[in-house]
């Protein structure tokens, strides 16, 4: 053996390990790819070997290659293999590889569930830690659902190392499986006060992440956090909490008021910059949330601004950056306080650090006013000139435009200045924001009517100098500006001084190099210009100009007719034909100008960007409905070839088509207008019908343009420089100010009171600056009945949306975490379900039926538990008291949750689904139909037995397990919404559940024995037992026992032994003596529970039996280990030999008629429960199924594992229940009836 190991390791010591691989790659710099591909081949070979060490080494190398960008998903299965190695070394390699390359769509992930679960409960804390770390990277919704409960258990692990990891990973689990949030939250909250600072910090971390997304749900935690904030000294925790408060205060202003003081104190006291910074941030958030204007808060603002100024002035660039960042938050609500630091911020614009400059730019956005806009923009323009590197320059450009255009050009007093700024910006080379500038130009020209003349003049110059801009013809390059220029010149051509010149500029051959969409605009607008030229020459006797114009058009347009761009071509050919026609008319001296102008009559109004979206859909209009019957596919295929030919035709014929006479054109135009006017969906561009202010007569509605003549409309000397405007503006302002002062003096003389402080406070305040143009900024049009709301909905794909869960509501029953568990007892099956049961192994149960069943189960579980508790008290004085039971079970997560559900006691028939899984707690999932669970340990507890209908199926547990695995897998495929290992596979519909009334939960498990060796080391072990009869051969019973370690020490070497009776024997492995114990196949670290199963053979089943047993184990802690033992009694009741077997009523009748059965009867007095509860109890505790039920009378059936039929007729009247029973074995019947009686005597 040892030799083999050594040999194995000698073999592999010549394998390449990670270091060799890295070294090799470094030595093959020139043919790295080739070298790596040979390495990958080697790795593939290594992965084929059986030696796990070799595999792990290969996987380790793959992890490295993954970092270099190689896809290693093909090795996913090998990674899983390495993960499941028992050695920590390899396990860690496997989990690391998995965390690097697994993701949600990795299909082998679902194979890892059990492995991870095993690792999570490993006695070695580092196995658990490594599994948690790995899981945090690749957790999927399925894993989250399946492991949520295991992880939740780990949150109370004794080792803080595990606790903190478990707490952190819960966040990932919540994200993937939001249903787990509510059940896990109480424990998470508990961890906020964990003694270990690491765990505490982890809990704070998780809650902060949660609260950041859905703050309102966490307001109730504010007091707890407040306490933590004032008590904690851990800066990490403090920062998180303070950040959290920043998110909470906007929702609860009162919280903000409370926070100010402690935060201010922290600001004054802390030496950690990070903490100081976060405090300032949160104070800002608080101040934003509070209604401003409270005097004491201005002090806080001052404090913040002061501290931030210190940060900004710091030589540490990081602090400077953060200071600016925080400053921009204050800016939103308290711009005044920030504006006083303008100097500092402008200074930051000169910083060599781009991040800082960008932040400063952000701040500038909020700092502009009418007064300083020009000055600031001037400064920015300087930076634009200086800026090297297009990114920053583009950023500057957009900022300039943002700053100027913000809130509807609020701060622009002189639009001529703005236009000239835009024109100056066009001189930037290589910018990618041509489109932005263009849209600004269009926007301003369209909306500011007073500026049009000036804008047109500027644009004409631009067009004239177009060659300067066409250098960069890439999309969205600066040439986009020409689009705007051409359009503005065309549309507002009446303002052009020399339209002929501009027309010439627009038809230069060079234009053909521009992008298609710009050419199209050129062509279209050249036609508009042409119309203007015609109009301007109207009435002139000399027609040379017009003829020149026509000739120019006819000469130049053919260039565009040849354009490859369809739009250009189409427009050019239309216009060319039109011009040719006009030329003919001109030659006949016909006056055409009027008609040509009519083509372009009407004003275009700006339309709000969202206008289209806001048009309400009229009632009765279904946009998704087909207008015509959808064509069949074959049809469309047939038509395809035809379309090719028909398409080409119009192309050739188009030029001819355009010779439509002018009147016809006008007529069509009119008709179209009419149609548009009547069409409610058309956003009208014509001023005709809709809004009053568009009417030429309605101009009064607009704050009318009063042109201040102190500003000349033209600035002498070539291209206007924006700077000149600045100068002019200053002069103008001074003048205005002087005038105002004069006036004011007068006023003061007249009226003593004066006008308040405003004028005294500063040399010049906002209100003083009258805009140069009283500008009419045309508002954008909206459809008439626009929908008012356009709140931005939250992104529906946001994973955090699912976590928007009210955490204060008490837990409902259906919210329990799914727990790995036994399929619980099946009480009864209706005939309908029986058929389904046949193939239950392969079939997913119908949801409804499984739900019903589970609900029923739950009820029974609870009842059973209660009765158990009481029975225990009575009959077994040596057993622990009821409280102990409760206490003991509290330790166990499963049972605990069940307890809570009982407390909550709000089961609704639909919500009980989950509880069933909980109730059936903790044991490994039992197989499909064949298995039987019998909660037992109490003397008179029934042992649930259940026979598989098809006895052909396997006998051994192992087989069952295989099957169950299969089923599990299947379930995963189905993505069952609940983790229903609990045995959802058997859908048993119980008649009783038809009732609407919820049934109380019932439990399968009961305390078997518990001890508390207080004298020793407070060690106690707890056994909860669940007996399953597995009696295909009529004599086998399986007992499931959950062992839970309640003490602080490690439990190992557990041995389970039972004193065999003549009738019942524990099945022991071959070769062992009749008195040997069975070794429990696991060890128990502190706080961990696990389950083992034991098989018994039973001879006779007509009598109940008791077995005495002992559990011995070693308690091991750091310095010592001791042997301990625990006695218990196993009780096999008669009903536990019964199997819920469905029976058809006709078969039932036949059975009764056969006369083979002996009868017996009992009466139960004072039974005070609804009839369906009663039936449910009988079904659950005694494994009967309802055959038929008529009002308060029901027939029930069950069968023993040895084939005895048991029939019941249950009747109830008032509080008396009478049960008539028949069975072919009177002793059995007597015992069963006794047991039933006992069950009811206790409720």
């Amino acid at each position, binding site marked *: 053996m040892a030799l083999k190991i050594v040999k194995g390791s000698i073999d592999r*010591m010549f394998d390449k390990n990670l270091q060799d691989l890295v070294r090799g790659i470094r030595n093959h710099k020139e043919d790295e790819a080739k070298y790596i591909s040979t390495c990958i081949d080697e790795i593939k070979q290594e992965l084929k070997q059986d030696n796990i060490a070799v595999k792990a080494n290969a996987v380790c190398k793959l*992890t490295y290659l993954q970092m270099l960008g190689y896809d290693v998903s093909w090795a996913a299965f090998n990674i899983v293999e390495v993960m499941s190695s028992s050695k920590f*070394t390899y396990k860690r390699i496997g989990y690391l590889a998995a965390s690097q390359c697994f993701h949600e769509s990795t299909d082998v992930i679902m194979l890892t569930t059990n492995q991870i679960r095993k690792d999570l409960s490993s006695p070695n804390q580092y196995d658990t830690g490594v599994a948690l770390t790995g899981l945090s*990277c690749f957790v999927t919704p399925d894993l989250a659902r399946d492991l949520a409960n295991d992880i939740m258990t780990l949150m109370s692990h004794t080792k803080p190392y595990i606790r903190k990891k478990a707490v952190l990973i819960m966040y990932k689990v919540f994200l993937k499986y939001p249903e787990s949030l509510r059940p896990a939250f109480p424990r998470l909250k508990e961890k906020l006060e964990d003694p270990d600072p690491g765990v505490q910090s982890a809990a704070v971390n998780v809650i*902060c992440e949660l609260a950041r997304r859905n703050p309102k749900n966490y307001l109730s935690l504010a007091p707890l956090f407040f306490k933590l904030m004032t008590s904690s000294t851990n800066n*990490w925790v403090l920062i998180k909490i303070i950040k959290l408060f920043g998110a909470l205060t906007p929702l609860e202003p009162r919280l903000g008021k409370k926070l100010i003081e402690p935060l201010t104190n922290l600001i004054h006291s802390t030496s950690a*910059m*990070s903490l100081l910074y976060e405090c300032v941030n949160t104070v800002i958030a608080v101040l934003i949330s509070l209604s401003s204007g409270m005097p004491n808060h201005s002090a806080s603002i001052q404090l913040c601004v002061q501290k931030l100024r210190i940060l900004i002035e710091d030589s540490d660039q990081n602090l400077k950056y953060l200071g600016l960042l925080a400053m921009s938050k204050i800016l939103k609500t308290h711009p005044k306080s920030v504006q006083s630091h303008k100097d500092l911020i402008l200074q930051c614009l000169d910083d060599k*650090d781009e991040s800082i400059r960008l932040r400063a730019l952000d701040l500038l956005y909020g700092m502009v006013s009418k007064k300083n806009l020009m000055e600031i923009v001037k400064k920015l323009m300087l930076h634009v000139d200086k800026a090297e590197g297009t990114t920053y320059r583009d950023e500057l450009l957009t900022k300039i435009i943002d700053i100027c255009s913000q809130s509807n050009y609020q701060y622009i007093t002189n639009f001529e200045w703005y236009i000239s700024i835009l024109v100056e910006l066009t001189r930037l080379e290589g910018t990618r924001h041509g489109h932005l500038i263009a849209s600004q130009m269009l926007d301003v020209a369209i909306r500011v009517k007073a500026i049009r003349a000036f804008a047109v003049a500027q644009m004409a110059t631009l067009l004239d100098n177009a060659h300067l801009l066409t250098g960069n013809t890439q999309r969205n390059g600066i040439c986009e500006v020409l689009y705007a220029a051409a359009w503005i010149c065309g549309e507002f051509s009446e303002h052009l001084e020399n339209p002929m010149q501009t027309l010439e500029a627009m038809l230069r051959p060079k234009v053909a190099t521009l992008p298609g969409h710009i050419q199209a605009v050129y062509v279209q607008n050249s036609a508009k210009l042409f119309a203007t030229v015609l109009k301007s020459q109207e009435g002139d006797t000399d027609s040379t100009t017009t003829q020149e114009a026509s000739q120019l058009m006819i000469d130049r347009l053919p260039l565009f007719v040849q354009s490859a761009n369809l739009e250009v071509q189409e427009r050019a050919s239309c216009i060319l034909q039109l011009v040719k026609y006009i030329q003919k008319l001109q030659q006949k001296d016909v006056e055409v100008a009027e008609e040509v102008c009519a083509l372009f009559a009407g004003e275009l109004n700006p339309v709000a960007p969202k206008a289209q979206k806001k048009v309400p859909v009229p009632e009765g209009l279904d946009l998704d409905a087909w207008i015509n019957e959808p064509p069949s596919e074959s049809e469309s295929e047939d038509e395809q070839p035809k379309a090719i030919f028909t398409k080409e035709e119009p192309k050739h014929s188009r030029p001819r088509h355009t010779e439509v006479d002018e009147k016809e054109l006008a007529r069509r135009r009119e008709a179209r207008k009419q149609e548009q006017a009547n069409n409610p969906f058309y956003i009208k561009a014509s001023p005709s019908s809709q809004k009053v202010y568009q009417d030429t007569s309605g101009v009064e509605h607009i704050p009318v343009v009063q042109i201040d003549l102190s500003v000349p409309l033209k600035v002498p000397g070539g291209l206007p420089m924006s700077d000149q405007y600045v100068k002019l503006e200053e002069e103008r302002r001074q003048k205005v100010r002087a005038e105002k002062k004069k006036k004011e003096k007068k006023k003061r003389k007249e009226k003593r009171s004066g006008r308040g402080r405003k004028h005294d406070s500063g040399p010049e305040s906002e209100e003083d600056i009258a805009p140069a143009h009283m500008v009419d900024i045309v508002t954008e049009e909206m459809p008439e009945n626009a929908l008012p709301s356009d709140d931005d909905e939250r992104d529906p794909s946001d994973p955090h949306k699912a976590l928007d869960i009210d955490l204060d509501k008490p837990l409902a029953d259906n919210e329990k975490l799914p727990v790995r568990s036994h399929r619980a007892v099946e009480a009864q099956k209706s005939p309908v379900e029986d058929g389904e049961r046949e193939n239950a192994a392969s079939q997913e149960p119908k949801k409804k039926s499984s739900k019903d069943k589970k609900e029923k189960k739950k009820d029974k579980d609870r009842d059973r538990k209660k009765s158990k508790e009481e029975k225990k008290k009575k009959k077994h004085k040596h057993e622990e008291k009821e409280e102990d039971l409760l206490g003991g079970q509290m330790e166990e997560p499963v049972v605990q949750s069940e307890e809570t559900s009982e407390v909550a006691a709000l089961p609704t028939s639909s919500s009980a689904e989950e509880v069933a899984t909980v109730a059936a707690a903790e044991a490994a999932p039992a197989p499909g139909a064949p298995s039987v669970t019998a909660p037992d340990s109490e003397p008179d507890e029934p042992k649930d037995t259940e026979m598989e209908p098809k006895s052909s199926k396997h006998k051994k547990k192992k087989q069952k397990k295989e099957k169950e695995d299969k089923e599990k897998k299947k379930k995963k495929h189905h993505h069952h919404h609940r983790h229903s290992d609990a045995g959802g596979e058997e859908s048993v519909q119980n008649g009783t559940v038809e009732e609407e009334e919820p049934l109380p939960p019932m439990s399968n498990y009961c305390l078997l024995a518990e001890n508390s060796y207080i004298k020793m080391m407070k060690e106690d072990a707890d056994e909860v037992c669940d007996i399953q009869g597995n009696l295909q051969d009529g004599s086998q019973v399986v007992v499931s026992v959950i062992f839970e370690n309640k003490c602080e020490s490690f439990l190992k070497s557990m041995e389970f032994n039972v004193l065999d009776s003549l009738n019942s024997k524990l099945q022991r492995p071959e070769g062992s003596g009749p008195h040997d114990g069975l070794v429990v196949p696991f060890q128990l670290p502190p706080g961990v529970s696990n389950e083992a199963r034991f098989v018994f053979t039973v001879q006779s089943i007509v009598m109940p039996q008791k077995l005495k047993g002992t559990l011995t184990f070693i308690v091991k802690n750091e310095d010592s280990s001791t042997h301990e033992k625990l006695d218990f009694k196993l009780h096999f009741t008669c009903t536990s030999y019964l199997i819920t077997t469905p029976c058809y009523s006709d078969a039932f009748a036949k059975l009764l008629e056969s006369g083979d059965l002996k009868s017996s009867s009992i009466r139960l007095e004072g039974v005070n429960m609804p009839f369906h509860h009663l039936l449910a109890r009988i079904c659950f505790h005694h494994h009967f199924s309802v055959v038929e039920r008529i009002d308060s009378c029901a027939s029930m059936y069950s069968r023993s594992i040895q084939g005895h039929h048991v029939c019941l007729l249950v009747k109830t009247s008032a509080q008396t229940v009478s049960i008539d029973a028949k069975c072919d074995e009177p002793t059995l019947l007597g015992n069963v009836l006794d047991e039933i009686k006992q069950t009811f005597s206790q409720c």
Partner: protein
Amino acid sequence: MIKAILIFNNHGKPRLSKFYEHYNEDTEQQIIRETFHLVSKRDENVCNFLEGGMLIGGSDYKLIYRHYATLYFVFCVDSSESELGILDLIQVFVETLDKCFENVCELDLIFHVDKVHHILAEMVMGGMVLETNMNEIITQVDAQNKMEKSEAGIAGAPARAVSAVKNMNLPEMPRNINIGDISIKVPNLPSFK
């Protein structure tokens, strides 16, 4: 939340990449390249924050990085993390590496990327800060290494011997190189606390 942790050298060669969100390998490489491009062109004396690239993050995310000798340590984080806190975390990370590797240099990271991962796993888990106390981190890392060693036991001995021999003969074994300029000098930064 931390979205990604990247370590690459002055030439953009990745030395460690840890993504807490899934990207395919190509995107990962692209992110590394882009991040390197952003970070490498920055001067030494500018701030350590960077509004991220296009690929990773978006407006809520920031790149926070530190440059040590030949290596860049870059964390991509969202707004729930404190910027200065993360800077300090990077410092803790590097100091921990320095302790664990005894005068860490780039070559340590090159040849023992797995160990670096394991150290990192004790600090950050699933994108959230797990532990910031260096002593605690080192204790856990050491304990795990000890386990690894005890598991290797006798069986591991031959392999260790061979790798020792291999390393001896090779000129590029980390320690034989003049590491004066590559060794990461851990400056004493103003403490976070």
